[in-house]
């Protein structure tokens, strides 16, 4: 059997190979660095809402059956890849075979997400690794050919990131919240001033209410802008808009709608009041003001003493989650749940009750379950 498998894996070395990638991001890189004789396909693109629960169609299975190489990210495919490879019955691409390429070995992942496409270093590193793998498929093409393809691709990558920086220049210095770990990866790469990640996991869904709660939290933290992916849930988008939070929409991944780097740059859109961002930018550039005098403070008294309330704390309870109440009473209705160990912002205090938010939910809990941040 081992000999038979060896014979079939040796069959990879052919003039025209079928390369199947799990998503469009890898497809785009492979398309740019592979030789043109190969047939390259992808399975999931950005139109798939939940790639984690994706079910491969019959056509995908047939594609995998014909594949000489299958390249995947090793993240969102975990739930369906085992069965898909079983159905595809292709000895060239099962785990351990030469044609099975899991790129999670080669690049770093932020919060388990697979959004490497917005990291210049990861894209280049991946291109070099994939180029090395693809080279073995095409003995007819020289080393120089692959080097030329790589250098062309690298210059396109550099151009893309410089164009991105130019488009995002107006948002430099503005405090932003990011919608998901993937978007946060993008924002960090672009050196924007990211202060908050709203979703903890990439496949978490956001509702209108969650968006409104997040917006309230952002206002408390004086964050006027949220960076969201282009395929954000409609309800959540309405939630941010109705709360007066500006949104900067970026394409989350390449795909049918954004087939190349240049379309990503043109696909970035801003919604909201741009004027609100200006004071913060000026504030950042302005020198630190001198201390105010006591009599000036007394002319405009604050609504509540901020030093007492605007603090962070950690949920410290023997229970894994705490019920948030909508009023400071133990008999009040439930306003959500908050996990133990979670960092929260203290918004208000009444007797032994404190009003807290973690950015998604807002409600009252007993002060005994909270430990203030020093």
């Amino acid at each position, binding site marked *: *059997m081992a000999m*038979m*498998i060896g014979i*079939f894996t040796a069959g990879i070395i052919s003039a025209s190979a079928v390369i199947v990638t799990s998503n469009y991001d890898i497809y785009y890189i492979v398309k740019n660095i592979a030789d043109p004789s190969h047939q390259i396909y992808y399975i999931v693109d950005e139109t798939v*809402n*939940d790639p984690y*629960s994706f*079910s491969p*169609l*019959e*056509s*995908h*299975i*047939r*594609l995998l*059956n014909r594949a000489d190489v299958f390249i995947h990210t090793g993240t969102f495919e*975990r*739930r*369906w890849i*085992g*069965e898909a*490879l*079983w159905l595809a*019955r*292709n*000895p060239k*691409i*099962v*785990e*351990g*075979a030469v044609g099975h390429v899991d790129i999670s070995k080669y690049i770093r992942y932020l919060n388990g997400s697979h959004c490497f496409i917005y990291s210049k270093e990861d894209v280049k590193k991946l291109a070099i690794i994939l180029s090395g793998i693809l080279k073995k498929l095409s003995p007819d093409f020289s080393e120089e050919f692959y080097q030329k393809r790589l250098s062309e691709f690298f210059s396109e990558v550099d151009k893309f990131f410089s164009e991105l920086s130019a488009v995002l220049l107006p948002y430099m210095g503005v405090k932003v919240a990011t919608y998901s770990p993937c978007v946060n990866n993008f924002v960090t790469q672009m050196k924007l001033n990211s202060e908050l990640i709203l979703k903890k996991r990439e496949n978490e*869904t956001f509702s209108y209410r969650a968006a409104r709660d997040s917006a309230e939290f952002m206002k408390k933290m004086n964050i006027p802008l949220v960076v969201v992916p282009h395929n954000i849930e409609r309800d959540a988008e309405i939630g941010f808009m109705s709360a007066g939070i500006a949104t900067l929409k970026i394409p989350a991944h390449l795909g049918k709608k954004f087939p190349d780097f240049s379309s990503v740059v043109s696909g970035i859109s801003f919604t909201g009041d741009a004027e609100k961002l200006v004071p913060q930018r000026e504030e950042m550039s302005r020198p630190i003001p001198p201390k105010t005098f006591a009599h000036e403070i007394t002319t405009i008294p604050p609504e509540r003493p901020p030093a007492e309330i605007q603090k962070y704390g950690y949920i410290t309870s023997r229970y894994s989650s705490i019920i948030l109440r909508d009023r400071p009473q133990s008999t009040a209705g439930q306003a959500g749940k908050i996990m133990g160990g979670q960092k929260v912002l203290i918004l208000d205090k009444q007797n032994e009750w404190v009003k807290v938010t973690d950015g998604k939910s807002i409600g009252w809990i007993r002060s005994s379950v909270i430990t203030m941040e020093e």
Partner: protein
Amino acid sequence: MSRGVVETCLTCLRVPFFILVFHIIGVLQLFAEVDFSVKGNSLFASFLGRNNYWMFAIRNLELEAKGSRGYFFLKGSFDVNPYTLSFFTESIAVEQTSVRDFFSTPSRTLYSADTIEDIIRIKELFVSTRGLPFVRVTMGRFYGAIGNLNQEKFWDRWFVERPFTIRNFFGIDGFLDEGLEISLFPPLPWSLEFIYQVFDGSEKPWGSRGSFEFVNLISIRNTFGQEPVNGGFGLFWCTGKNNSADRLDSKGTAIVSPAENFTEFFGGDAFFNLGEIFSARVGYIIKRESIPQILRVEGGLFSEFVVRPIDFFAAGIRPEIFGIPRNVFPEGGGVVSRPQIADISISATFLPTDYVRLRLQWTGNFSEAALPQNIFYLQAMFNLF
């Protein structure tokens, strides 16, 4: 393949039921990358016409786990027996066709659950090879390769139940049994699959021993085209003997008639998909049952048409005719024609999120020899992860 080898393989499956249930996850843990999913389905149905009552049932509360490692794939799923979790307004005349679908056997008491076997059923449990060139061998409990609709589970269907023809021949859970499968997949530009399955057709409960009655199944499947437009067809022939005509509870589903009889099924189905927007399926299954000196022939033609114009809504219509032909050739000669049944279902499925589905369905069952039966379904499904 010799009978002795097949018997040995099938005997391996006959270990006590509870050991299987409690060890299934342990076995799966041996595999890397075990994936669990929990799916559930509750159903409210109102019957009007031939019978008048309503029922509520928790159906298909199902835990599924699958894992793969190297050249092996393992899948197991078990669910709560819906017959122990159904609530009716009155006792039902179970011989009525449209009602029988909801019961295991006419003699079964609705609310009794004496053993764990009555509550939890193993649906599928098989180990299969993966990535061997051209061939795949599967052993365990799995669905018979009679077209595509038999193997579809509730989460993937656009109607509450399988087509009436399949339910009538093989039971509400479709054709599902313990056995061995060898499937060949020649390297062709399109997808062609030859399948041979042998099932244990005897009605022996889990853990008991007895003689085997084999059910043999041969199937050919073909699929053409790529995404988004693709289609295909499949043909099958199935024959064998077993001891029971109705084995819906712990053991499996009816495939053939009593032991002294000989039954064969043949038929096929075809499908066409236009992306997710439109899909159509047509199938025909005929059964020839020879009771000594008497031959019964009955066939069912079924079709499904589903449109999904937007992501969160799909509508489907499923017209079927059961009884073309529906003849009995008695001992003394001549032909007796039995009444035909027309069954039509119209469903509307709402998909508000990736994890929840809601369905409204009307099914009309019209027999030439009985009053019409209308069934209104309200179905709620979830797929946790």
